[in-house]
């Protein structure tokens, strides 16, 4: 499953990805190429997504994550939970 995320990330979109994993999808790809910043609710949803992926042995791929956002994910130790690609 491929989800394109707008610059203003909606937690709904991330919840959609969570549902896909819960429904049995083994892999979800989120396209972050339009995202310049993340906020606290997004981080919370990403952490939840990572938790579900762990539980379901699923895989979450993040595409096009800019380095500023990547650093935020790194600081909250979420980078190890996702796969990254350009």
């Amino acid at each position, binding site marked *: 499953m491929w989800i394109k995320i707008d610059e203003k990330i909606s937690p709904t979109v991330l919840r959609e990805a969570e549902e896909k994993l819960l429904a049995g999808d083994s892999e979800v790809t989120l396209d972050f190429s339009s995202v310049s910043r993340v906020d*606290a609710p997004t981080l919370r949803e990403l952490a939840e997504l990572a938790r579900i992926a762990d539980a379901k042995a699923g895989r979450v791929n993040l595409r096009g994550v800019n380095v*500023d956002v990547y650093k*935020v994910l790194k*600081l909250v130790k979420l980078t190890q939970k996702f796969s*990254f690609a350009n």
Partner: protein
Amino acid sequence: MSTLETLPEKTIVPPTENLPPERIACLDNLVSQAKTAAALFAQFTQEDVDRIVRAMVLAGLEHAQHLARLAIEETRIGVMEDKVIKNMVASEFVYNFVKDKRTVGVIREFPDRNLTEIAEPVGVLFSITPITNPTSTVLFKCIVAVKTRNAVIFGPHPKAWRCCAEAVRIMYETAVKHGAPEGVFFCLESPTIPDNAYLMHHKDVAMIDATGGPGAVKAAYSSGKPALGVGAGNTPVYIEKTADLNTAVVDIIVSKTFDNGTICASEQTLVIDDEIFDQVLKKFADLGAHICNEKETRLLARTVIDPQTGCMQPMAVGQKATDIARFIGLKVEPNTKLLMAEIRGVGRGHPLSAEKLFPVLAVYRAHSASEALRVCVDVNHHGGLGHTAVIFSRNDGIIRKFGEVINAGRIIVNSPGSIGALGAVYNDLVPTFSFGCGTGGGNSTTDNVNIYHYLNIKRMARRTQNHMWFRVPNQIYFNMNAVENIRQFPSLSTIIITNPALEQLGHVEIVRKNLPPKTHLHVHVIPDAEPEMQVILDGVKALNFYKADQIVALGGGSVIDAAKIMKLKYESPSADLEELAAPFLDLRKRVVQFPSERTNHARLIAIATTSGTGSEVTPFAVLTDNANGRKVTLADYTLSPDVAIVDPQFVMSMPKGLTADTGIDCLTHALEAGVSNYASPYTDSNAMQAIRLAFKYLPIAYENPRDEEARSMMHNAACIAAMAFSNASVGLNHALAHAFGARFKVAHGRANALMLPHVIAYNASVPTKFMPSPYTQGYVANKKYATIADLLGLPGHTIDEKVKSLIAAIEHLLDDLDFPRSIADLGISKEEFEKAMPELVKNAFDDPAWRSNPRMPLMSEIGELFWKAYDGRTRPVTTEVLEHQPA
């Protein structure tokens, strides 16, 4: 796709004793939220944080009185009006300091140093705040934290947590409203020591900022976390006899009564010169101080200071003077501002010499400036190391001496201690509510803590292209009869330094004929050997005797080197040759500088009579130290001759052996300068030309000594090669040759020849260790050897082939010059050589010549090179090369 594997984190186990699980969960949750906030902060721009900070400052100003009232109600410490001012200073004055400072991204650039400083936030801070300045400290730290994009969890003093929590709430709500991440501040409610201990050890707390008593500071530093711990003081004040007494007395009252003396930088003991003592005390009394008599002093000492600990009684902290007096049963006027008591010493035996965060001042009568300074030092060391000290004086010498002997991060001059130390009011100190006390106070800094302590400052250092140089004598005359140019240099007294052989050959007479007519000439003959100290001293004596204004060095390297050193000692008699020979890595950074002051002046004209060393243009001179069995090498451009004469008539009679030896020395100079780490386009052009000339003319000059063209060109080649290595230095070949030549008494050129093919092969292969050098871009020695091969028209398609051709051509040249082709050929036995090997390796490695070599030699490799030179040629010279004639 890529997934990052991360290293396991260090295991940090926070202490959990006396902490129920739900409290631990609560604290973990706070840290987690703060961590997320700090992470999100990483995305903020300077404009983002500046906008938030401005709003926070305005909120702080708006609530200054509200927070002051809360602090007074909760702590019962201090003065309401003063706490309002403190809150305003913490907001407005701090803002004025930080508002234009860059704290995001690039914060400073140093273009001339190629340095850029970039800010990196710290992350989550755990901050302890004191009871004495609760809300102002919180305001200050919140503003500084947002300015630097950090999150803070506050652990306020247990008796001041409500007012602090309110201050944090105001700052938090304002910050978040203006865009700060949620979770940026938290304040512990009813904090306990176990809470603090847990947070201090929490793995996600990046730094501790502890403003408080010694216990809190010690706990912070003991946690193993980076910490800013600032704590207690004991401020000595010296009122020196030249002080403006009216200003001093008012300033001290202002300071010591400010918030009832709760600022830890406030004055504690006044040390007053005897001449003004009574006058000063009267002024204090006139302005509302109560001067205690001896009985009252004893009462005060045993009540406000705990006799068990020697520390102040907590109940007195921040109380009014009249309240303290009433409490201890001391009768004072109702408007009394201060209680002052005379002490006669400092330490546990004199309780009032300790820190007193309330309006009680100790005073000491000093009978001299020296005694006053000693007592101030005593107070400083009695619990106040690193904190604050104050002096009132108009005597700048005393003020400076006070600054030198007192160990305090803030030395406040002619102004109030407490408000002065806060900064930005009475002086230009950085505004703060955290005073760093340095190592004396067990702290990591003596600074007034501010934004730069809340940042990791990254320094981006771009490669610096150091300037280089090309320095040679500014007058070089060459070709046949160039000596005639000596006529143009006026001189009243000239000394020719030469050796006996050259005098016999008539060379001295040639020079004499070309000197200006009225020149008084003296010829000073020295032995034909490397100069030793006595030779130098004799020469200097002659120079002084004849008051020489010109020295003509006529000879080979030894004579010219001797003349250089004689000139140095003649012009600068105090020059210490031993010290001047101290080793150095970089000419510009050398520890020992050559003297620039001169008592005499003499022009040095060098006339070379050999074609090898190039000493006529080099900044080097070698002195033999026979007493210690060693050579002393001096190197400095001030040694370079003023004028060089490269006239081939002086080398036409050189014997064949000397022609070969000096010629190979010249070639080695050029080859080593060519691949040196200090090589430049300027030295390369000289090195390449010298190599070309040597390959072409050395065999001719050797076979046909009277060939004027060959002699002239080799003479030029030696000088040109010397210009190259004077600026690019030599290399490993010289280091090996120096060690080997000295040990086995082999001529320098011959020793060079034995090493040369092996060193080229060594330098042209990939180094085991590269030489660090800011001057070179990549490893190029092999390519430069290939370029030399191309220049000589040698065969080869690849770099490797060309290097081999160059080595073969050198082998061929050495054969033509009838050089022994191995150390074994010199008759040195293998056993003897093996025995000498440790010394050879050591001396070669100690030789500074290889420092510019393109390949850093390991000691084992030096040994291998010596053995290769012992065995001699290992590769047969190809027919192709043998048939080749250099271009």
